[in-house]
């Protein structure tokens, strides 16, 4: 049957309509680069539906577990999921990953906002309050196995507790320290710095045309603040009060900590722009830097990739009139409070990291290097915690760690602004006062 011209035209139009519906925002950009990018794409598998749905044929409950980890860490969780799926047949867990930026900035918030959040997910201290205030995280207190809760360090449990409810499970503590190239220090006649003055002096002596004295993160963001906090805490300063409602930023301690940080950049000892991420030990490994403040995660890479570079570590130098302190970061494991099978999801979370210490130990000693918030795990891994650079962490740094604070994004931004202003020449006391004013305004709004 011959299709009339009209029929063909209608078919073509229908097809075009369908295509334009999928094509989206073509008209606005006119092909210019520099237009906005279209949405994020997820790296790993498919985004599952929120909530466990039991399909008609089998009784199994399906739970979705969204993650951002890559490589060995991803493989670890894939194995955990496979094992858990195999040892019981009540639930089946579906695991998927996205890249970290998409995960934290768009994937999770948008899914939760639409009521389609995954049953199981990861939460960082930076986003913790955002999710807690929205009521997205399940109270895990009743799910702790007998005696497990006491095994955890009180500070790490406090960091995830809001209004008496434990909203996430901590499973790693990543501590910051000062890494350095032993040869470079020796050649420059510099001793391993122990105080602020010594650190500044060492950086000055070690900086050359080709080598940076000290690598610090130069760009704003949660990690930027994370690396600065030890300097603030060493002076006894803090950003907000205990209850998070008042700004304590307008103090001389804050100004001194800001100024100390800024000095490294102002004198050209720390580069204002890095080609690689400041979390990578590659800066020392490649010989472009003499010292770097970075975390426990760097040890494995230093040993495996830069084994021939004499890298060693020491606690972050403290001011003469202050104390040792460092930052303890790390992700937490959380369950969607609105999940249809929150119980089962919580059981999985506890199974992975709150039960058999072997799994938790594998994570912190084999897959990556970090500390476990569980005393039994630290005990079980005693040998590993004494190997090489880990020994320095275990003996000198572990006890001085303060958990990364969980401030709202606006607070992180304001503190970041103050740091940057001082880095580029503003008077530290002024910057602190200004930030204090802005913090007070923001905290009032957030009430």
């Amino acid at each position, binding site marked *: 049957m011959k299709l009339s011209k009209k029929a063909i035209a209608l078919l073509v139009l229908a097809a075009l309509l369908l295509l334009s*519906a999928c094509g989206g925002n073509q008209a606005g950009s006119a092909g210019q680069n520099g237009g906005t990018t279209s949405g994020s794409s997820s790296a790993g598998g498919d985004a599952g539906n929120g909530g466990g749905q039991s399909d008609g044929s089998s009784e199994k409950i399906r739970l979705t577990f969204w993650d951002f980890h890559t490589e060995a860490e991803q493989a670890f969780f894939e194995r955990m999921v496979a094992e858990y799926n195999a040892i019981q047949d009540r639930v089946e867990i579906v695991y998927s990953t996205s890249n970290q930026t998409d995960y934290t900035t768009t994937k999770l918030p948008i899914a939760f906002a639409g009521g389609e959040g995954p049953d199981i997910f990861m939460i960082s201290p930076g986003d913790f309050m955002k999710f807690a205030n929205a009521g997205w995280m399940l109270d895990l207190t009743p799910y702790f196995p007998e005696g497990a809760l006491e095994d955890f360090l009180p500070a790490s449990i406090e960091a995830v507790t809001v209004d008496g409810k434990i909203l996430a499970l901590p499973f790693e503590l990543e501590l910051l320290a000062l890494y350095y190239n032993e040869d470079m220090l020796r050649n420059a006649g510099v001793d391993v710095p122990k105080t602020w003055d010594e650190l500044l002096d060492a950086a000055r002596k070690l900086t050359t045309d080709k080598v940076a004295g000290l690598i610090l993160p130069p760009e704003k963001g949660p990690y930027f603040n994370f690396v600065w906090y030890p300097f603030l805490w060493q002076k006894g300063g803090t950003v907000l009060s205990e209850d998070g409602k008042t700004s304590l930023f307008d103090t001389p301690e804050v100004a001194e900590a800001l100024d100390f940080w800024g000095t490294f950049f102002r004198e050209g000892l720390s580069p204002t722009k890095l080609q690689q991420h400041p979390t990578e030990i590659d800066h020392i490994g490649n010989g472009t830097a003499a010292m770097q403040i970075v975390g426990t995660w760097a040890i494995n890479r230093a040993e495996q990739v830069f084994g021939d570079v004499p890298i060693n570590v020491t606690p972050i130098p403290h001011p003469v009139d202050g104390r040792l302190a460092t930052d303890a970061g790390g992700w937490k494991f959380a369950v969607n409070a609105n999940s249809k099978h929150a119980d089962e999801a919580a059981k999985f979370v506890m199974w992975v990291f709150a039960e058999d210490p072997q799994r938790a130990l594998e994570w912190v000693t084999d897959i990556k290097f970090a500390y476990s918030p569980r005393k039994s795990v630290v005990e079980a891994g005693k040998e590993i915690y004494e190997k090489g650079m880990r020994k320095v962490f275990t003996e000198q740094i572990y006890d001085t760690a303060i958990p990364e604070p969980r401030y709202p994004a606006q607070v992180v931004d304001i503190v970041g602004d103050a740091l940057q202003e001082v880095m580029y020449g503003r008077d530290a006391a002024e910057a602190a006062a200004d930030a204090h004013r802005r913090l007070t305004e923001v905290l009032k709004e957030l009430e």
Partner: protein
Amino acid sequence: MVANRKNARKLQEWATAYLFVLPDVAGLFVFVFLPILYAFYVSLHRWNAFSPRAFVGFDNYAALVSDAQWWHSLERTFLFSAVYVPLLFALSLASAVMIHALKKRTANLVRTMFLMPFAITSVTSAIIGIFLMDPRNGLINQLFKHAGLPTQQFLGSPSQALYCIVAVLLWINLGYNMVIFLAAIKEIPRDYYEAANLDGASGWQMFRYITFPLLRGTSTFILIVTLIGSFQVMDQIMVMTKGGPVNSTQVSAYYIYKVAFEQMNMGYSSALAFALFSIIFALSLIQLKLLSRE
């Protein structure tokens, strides 16, 4: 009888024309107009994407008037556009005129070279920019050193970072705009130039009195599209500076993104976005009025 057939054909032409345009308009409507209306609706509420919306009327708009960061971001945006748009216009027009004067084979080669950067994704161009402009090891600073010039901080300097972003965008967009100009220049009849030559006109005079006036339509198009595009720059800023250092590259689009997705303040960011949209819309209208002549 004849009149009816004429009307019928006119109707059919008219209908076909609109039907052809319909798919794109339908797409525009669903994916552009409706979201704009929805954004305005959201801007009248306080909403952080998870708690229920709370109607606050025009509070968000009142807030943005007294928001120092917003005004600062507008200043950076206008500065960016004020530098980028004229430069892009001038450079692409100049290169088009130059290529037009070359012999065919050379012209094709040069044109391809100019156009190639356009094929790079924006993120890749940003990463290349980071490497080229690295204060310590970047190629550009190495060249400066050899030439005896002082090395620059580029993206690590609050006073230079914005212009570095301009430079990267010029690099990748030059070819595209140049090709548009080139096509328009080729449309100009050779007789005009021959006549001008007979009258003894110089190259510059030919450009000023023949080429440039006859490119009015194309120029208008390029200026408007470039201006709108310059307000939307995000990728390079996100990759190269994240709005820094010291917020010197925090243009309005980036500030809106920050408020929306880092602070989860959907209501306020929608108000900001709507304000930015109004500004771009007004500017484009003004440009169109000033530059077009039927």
